[in-house]
């Protein structure tokens, strides 16, 4: 059984200053993907759209139409294919950031698949970096349905989780991701301005053997950048205080 992260986030802020809520970072189970597919994805698909120039940004989400059961299976398939000759990347992981239910399970509020040791040509100081493959944070409508306060920084906590999974696998914290164009400028601004990631140039070399186009849709965080990024969550890695 795959271990959970060594240094996960254990709480996230609520909209009330000084008050956080306990969260748990867990390996994704099929039932989490099923939960998302049945309860969360319909809220996303029913309330949001892919980017178009004429719709308000608050209505835009890149993950409209996603199927997290498929995403989960892609992660498994990736892992199954890692022994193939020429595949230098490591196995994938699927993780959730969630909260506990009264029945003792977890409800995912953030979903992530990641390749913690992704063989790429972007990393400055090594051949591998953590590649955040698919990530979704819960929309406001899910918090409404669950009748709980919304948790802040959920999307960023998923990036932190991707970095931590890379660190656990021996990388130096570099992070790469592809910003789905369906998320529009809002998504790019989030990665660039909020997360301080570097947007690759269109003329950059392909990031990997199979990812050869749309280089400017990729965002990268150096080892130093990821240290700064993850440091903002240090206070959230302890359950109390």
């Amino acid at each position, binding site marked *: *059984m*795959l271990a959970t992260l060594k240094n996960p986030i254990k*709480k996230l*802020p*609520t*909209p*009330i*200053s*000084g*008050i*956080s*809520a*306990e969260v748990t970072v867990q*390996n*994704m*189970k*099929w039932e989490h993907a*099923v939960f998302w597919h*049945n*309860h969360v994805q319909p809220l996303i698909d029913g309330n949001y759209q892919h980017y178009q120039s004429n719709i308000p940004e*608050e*209505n835009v989400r890149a993950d409209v139409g996603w*199927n997290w*059961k*498929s995403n989960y*299976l892609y992660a*498994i*398939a990736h*892992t*199954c*294919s890692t*022994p193939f000759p020429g595949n230098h990347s490591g*196995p*994938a*992981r*699927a993780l959730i950031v969630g*909260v506990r*239910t*009264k*029945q003792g399970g977890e*409800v995912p509020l953030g979903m992530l698949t990641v390749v913690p040791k992704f063989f790429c040509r972007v990393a400055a100081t090594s051949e591998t970096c953590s590649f955040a493959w698919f990530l979704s*944070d819960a*929309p*406001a409508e899910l*918090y*409404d349905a669950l*009748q*709980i*306060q*919304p*948790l*802040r*920084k*959920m*999307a*960023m906590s998923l990036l932190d989780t991707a970095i931590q999974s890379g660190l656990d696998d021996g990388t130096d914290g570099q992070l790469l991701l592809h910003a789905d164009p369906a998320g529009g400028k809002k998504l790019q601004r989030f990665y660039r301005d*909020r997360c301080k990631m570097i947007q690759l140039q269109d003329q950059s070399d392909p990031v990997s053997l199979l990812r050869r186009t749309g280089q400017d849709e990729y965002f990268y965080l150096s080892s130093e950048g990821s240290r700064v990024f993850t440091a903002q969550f240090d206070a*959230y890695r302890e359950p*109390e*205080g």
Partner: protein
Amino acid sequence: MNAFDNLPTELIGLVLKELTGKTYDVHDANSLASAKSAFKDLLSSPEPEMLQRVIEAILRTSEKTESTSRLPSVELRLMDGPRETEEELLEDLPSRARPVLASQSRTRHQAVSPRELGFEAPAFGPRQPSPSVEQWEEFLLLAEKNIRTLSPYRRNERRNGDRVVLSWEHIAPNHEMVEIQRGQNVATAHFVFESAYVYFILSSEENVIYHSVATIEEADGFAKHVIKAFNGERDSANLALASIREAIAH
């Protein structure tokens, strides 16, 4: 990722049956091991079409066999966290969950801003002069008028050192929360509306509004009245007001 640890074995068996025609007894250890091996072979096929077939078969089988469960019941476990500025509190919320601050124009529920009514005490910070009965009256009236979407509250209790912290969580979309902190000789309650803070202080200190609170149960009862008042129940609003009047009279 250990590919199959978290996949239901029954699902693996059904998919293999569909794709290979073979039946595996997934409750038998040896048969399950064979099933996993066969399943891995399918998923690691170098042919993208085969991979797609496998994934589609899993999704199809899953849709057929899994029933939609009810939304589980969740209770946030609240705890102390870093303090943040009002500006920071606006950042990194889920889309459309932006709270309405007093300084901003009202949207969504047109909730009354308690600050406009003179409720300015910061949570856990220095005490401010208590609101007057008139202010409470005005507030409850406006609350009654504006906030009708609350669901029943949920009470949480936790210990933080020698303090017992009770919180009454409400309920999106208004994001109200009532919290009472009861320390050695202090009980504090604050209400939060749309992240604009409404406080009433239950305290043994001078600037109290309800100093007769002696037990958690009493605080609980008082909060219940106020919450119901906010939910548009006039009798409860009157009871809450009566409590406030009584407290101030003392």
